């Protein structure tokens, strides 16, 4: 039972902040409580022993993958909490609403944790919804901004359609196997002859999660929503939300759906192939940074999907490692965008002359872009190597060549951002950016994480060890 303490703490923290806000505790204090607690929970999670598989009430499980992903989601929530400072502290009216924001953020994080803990379909679905519904309202955070409202509307509409499909698919799965429990479903699928009823459910489940992962052709909401949402929400969407969906698929494919995993290989690779291509093509001609990041994230989801065709012992570490690297790089990128945003529009032209004006910021930008593009020796390269290695292990060599070519296309547009920052001359008297010591500290840490995950094997070794420990 004590292993569940971190999960409860997240929930307590969420409601605690909500309650304390009602008791008129100042928002700044609550913000400090939030990030300190998240740090504490993160440390606590790291002290949990690996190699244990615990089950509670046949619905809740804690295993190695779940443990690592918990750490990931708490880390992600922590970075976004830190990122909110810039947006809420400046303005008193905004500051008042900060606790609500944190509450929603923590609920989403708890939802993600529910997804990675689920042992049966209902819990899984509830977790997924818990990790999605608060996002609708987070996207619409700037009530007066029409772009934000429009984005939220689109998100809700398409999101509900996908939820409907997901629920439909899950209900058919339940109907086919007669159970919600993963183990029963697994044994049923391996013994029972599969009919079209079952395949329909599989298609609907994949399409449903395709929305959350922004796979082509279920991606259309992403660019609009990413652009309309406030930057911390966009960052959170691109990392935690995507990771939740990947976790969902990983758990299903290596759990209850394992018997039909091989049959789904082609579909998964097809989706990966079109998603990375469309993502790359979409990013090719962007001039607004957040929209650009939306397309970039779509392409990244395609890469991650590639790993899912490999065997569990290779795919899982590859995915977890890449998620961490992706989080480091994306958050660093969004942090830079947030710095720009306070004084300039978030377009490529705002980057002009950046490297000259702020060499350190330019270097951080270069690191994150190299990582996203997968250029050695930064972390993104090794991450992609693991992902493609997983697919190679299943023998899909031609696909890897295709993915590598796609990665080359992505190099083009990532380098365009570089060019804006490094080559294109800026204006004579560039506007100063508001860079605080706090910004410097966090972006330095993120930059170091991106670099160190590539140079030093601490992260990948750690992930491999944890996933290989125990039963």
């Amino acid at each position, binding site marked *: 039972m004590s292993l569940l303490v971190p999960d409860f703490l997240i929930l307590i923290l969420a409601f605690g902040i909500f309650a304390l806000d009602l008791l008129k505790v100042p928002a700044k204090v609550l913000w400090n409580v939030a990030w300190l607690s998240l740090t504490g929970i993160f440390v606590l999670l790291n002290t949990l022993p690996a190699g244990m598989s615990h089950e509670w009430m046949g619905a809740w499980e804690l295993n190695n993958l779940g443990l690592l992903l918990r750490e990931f989601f708490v880390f992600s929530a922590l970075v976004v909490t830190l990122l909110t400072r810039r947006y809420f502290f400046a303005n008193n009216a905004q500051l008042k609403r900060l606790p609500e924001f944190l509450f929603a953020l923590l609920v989403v994080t708890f939802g993600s944790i529910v997804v990675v803990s689920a042992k049966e379909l209902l819990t899984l679905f509830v977790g997924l919804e818990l990790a999605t519904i608060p996002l609708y309202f987070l996207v619409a955070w700037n009530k007066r901004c029409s772009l934000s409202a*429009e984005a939220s509307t689109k998100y809700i509409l*398409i999101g509900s359609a996908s939820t409907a499909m997901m629920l439909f698919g899950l209900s058919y799965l339940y109907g086919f196997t007669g159970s919600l429990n993963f183990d029963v479903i697994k044994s049923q699928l391996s013994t029972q002859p599969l009919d*079209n009823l079952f395949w329909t459910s599989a298609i609907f489940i994949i399409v449903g999660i395709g929305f959350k992962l922004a796979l082509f052709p279920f991606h259309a909401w992403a660019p609009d929503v990413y652009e309309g949402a406030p930057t911390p929400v966009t960052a959170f969407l691109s990392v935690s939300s995507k990771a939740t969906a990947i976790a969902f698929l990983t758990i299903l494919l290596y759990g209850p759906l394992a018997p039909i995993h091989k049959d789904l290989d082609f*579909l998964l690779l097809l989706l990966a192939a079109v998603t990375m291509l469309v993502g790359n093509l979409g990013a*090719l001609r962007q001039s607004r940074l957040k929209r650009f990041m939306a397309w970039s994230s779509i392409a990244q989801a395609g890469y991650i999907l590639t790993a899912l065709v490999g065997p569990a012992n290779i795919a899982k570490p590859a995915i977890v490692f890449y998620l961490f690297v992706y989080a480091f790089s994306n958050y660093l990128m969004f942090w830079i965008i947030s710095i720009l945003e306070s004084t300039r529009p978030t377009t490529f032209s705002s980057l002009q002359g950046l490297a000259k004006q702020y060499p350190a910021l330019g270097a951080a930008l270069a690191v994150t872009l190299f990582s996203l593009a997968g250029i050695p020796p930064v972390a993104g390269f090794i991450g992609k190597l693991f992902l493609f290695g997983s697919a190679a292990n299943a023998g899909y060599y031609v696909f890897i060549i295709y993915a590598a070519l796609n990665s080359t296309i992505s190099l083009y547009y990532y380098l365009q951002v570089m060019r804006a920052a490094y080559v294109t001359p800026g204006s004579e008297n560039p506007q100063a950016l508001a860079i605080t010591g706090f910004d410097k500290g966090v972006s330095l840490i993120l930059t170091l994480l991106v670099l160190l995950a590539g140079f030093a094997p601490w992260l990948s070794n750690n992930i491999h060890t944890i996933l290989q420990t125990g039963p």
Partner: protein
Amino acid sequence: MTDLIQLQESIWARHSYLILALPLLSFIINSLLFSKKKKISAAISTVLSGASFAYVLGLVIPWFKIVLKAGSAPAQILWNWNWFPMTENFGVKLGLLLDPISAMMLVVITAIAFLVHVYSVGYMKDDPGKGRFFPLLSLFAFAMLGLVISTNLLQMYIFWELVGVSSYLLIGFWYHKPSAVAAAKKAFIITRFADAFFLLGIVIVAWMNGSVDFLLINTPEAAAQLNRTVSLGFASFNALSIATLLIFTGGWGKSAMFPMHVWLPDAMEGPTPVSSIIHSATMVVAGVYLTARMFPLFSAAPFTLEVVMWVGAFTAAFAAIIAITQKDIKRILAFSTLSQLGYMMFSLGVARMGTDINSLGYSASMFHVFNHAFFKCMLFLGAGAIIHRVHSNDLDEMGGLRKQMPWTYAAMLIACLAIAGVPPFSGFFSKDEILLTALQNGHIAVFVTGTVVGLLTAFYMFRFFFLIFHGEARTEISTAKEDPWMTFPIVLLAIPAAVGGLLLHKAFGSIVIPPMQISDICFANYDWVPWLATAMGVLGIALAWVLYGRKQTDVAAVLNTEDRPRWYQVVYDKFYIDDLWLWFSRTLIIKTFSGGLKWFDRNIIDGTMDLVGAVLQRGGVAVRKMQNGSVALYLGLFFTGLFLVAWFGNLPLK
């Protein structure tokens, strides 16, 4: 043989790595610590090089006594360090192989290196780059010593490249002169070009034979193993012929044989001590040394030996003809070096008759390497002393120097007589043996060529000699005394040039023989050959005297290069081989070949890339257009996607 084992355990043999370590040490400490302190640098280099020479003598003299007593000199490996093991019996080893030719080269290199160091103290006295000069000279000595003691082809290749690098650095020593930089590049590129073939040859030998150790590949078994047809994809070859030919190509470039000779005359842009040690006495004979080192294997491939012979003989004649017309004294000596290298090369090439091996060709070649090293080194040092005095390389500026430089004059006379093949000076003995081998083994054409080149050699050397020292001074020359730092090595080197041949020709004939089965048939002895050779030398000298030495010689007319018949111009311009190379590299390689590739790259490769780029950009536009913000479209896409997934998903639907 027990003596040899005793020697192997002696302190000299056990620490024989010091021969290499001392120059290397000099290079390291001088370049790290004393690059600014020129005097200390010169002193350390000279002392360590002298110590290295002393050490070689300590090792070689007892060895020489033992083998002389025993009458044979089996090769010995004193140490062999497995530097970079790859498989169980293959790897890069660094070792010391002691046999007659490596012992001979060790003595030659260390002795000359030491004397050149001493000479350089005087020659480089006022040069601002002195602090850079001595470490490089030590680096060269280290590399060259490593090359000659090689126990295997890979070690030889490593040091082979290292001498190439130090040669490059020293030719371009005066890097502020564009001509020096160009010459350095030329030398490096041409030798590297040849080395590429060398490496390929090594690869073939290693691959077919499983070993690169000289002691293992210089055997009839190895030759038999190599003697089969291999397919290189586009054509089939006899592996033995192709491997030996490729390896020889490395030596071809390094020893500057025609048509890869063009770098050597240009290499004279380096300081004269460098020309003396690297580009006459030691490094350029590496090609000859390599051929000799691999001789047992080469001799199993008649075609390769034939190539060696013709390349050598042709270069000998070709370079001698050019030498006659040159006016730059260092270039005359450079062409002379080419010609003499040709002798050494063809001597190895003619050493086989039918299936019999005539050991005389091998020992004569090595003997000529030995003799040539001393007298040519000394000629260069003498030329350097002259250049130092008159500040010009041009014969126009010289004349009448015998009074100002009596020591140099006397020493140079001995060297010129030696190279002209006049008994009893050293060159006579080795050249006579070379000619004799050619005749004995029935290569009449080569014999005739060699004899005529003997005449030419005497002629151009004494043209050089008379025009420098005799007649009237053509410019004003300072009357300062000769610098003892420079004169001392010159005079010392005159000793082996004078008596080396006489004293050592018996020993060379009996000890320096190829490590293989040698036919014991008695080769015909032609008593008249020495007389002919001597007559040719004397005739050449006499001709030179008539044309250039007499009082009434019109020096201005003989040195005129403008108003000359066409053939003279052609020879003076070195048969336009340099221009041919330029055409080859500029027009053929750069313009035609690279130009073609460039066109292909611009139009086909870039074109394809542009097309891909354009398609991708179009795709980008299409994706953007699809993203028009309409929820209806998005949802439509969503539901269409559902059906597309079912359709294209390749699921086992029934």
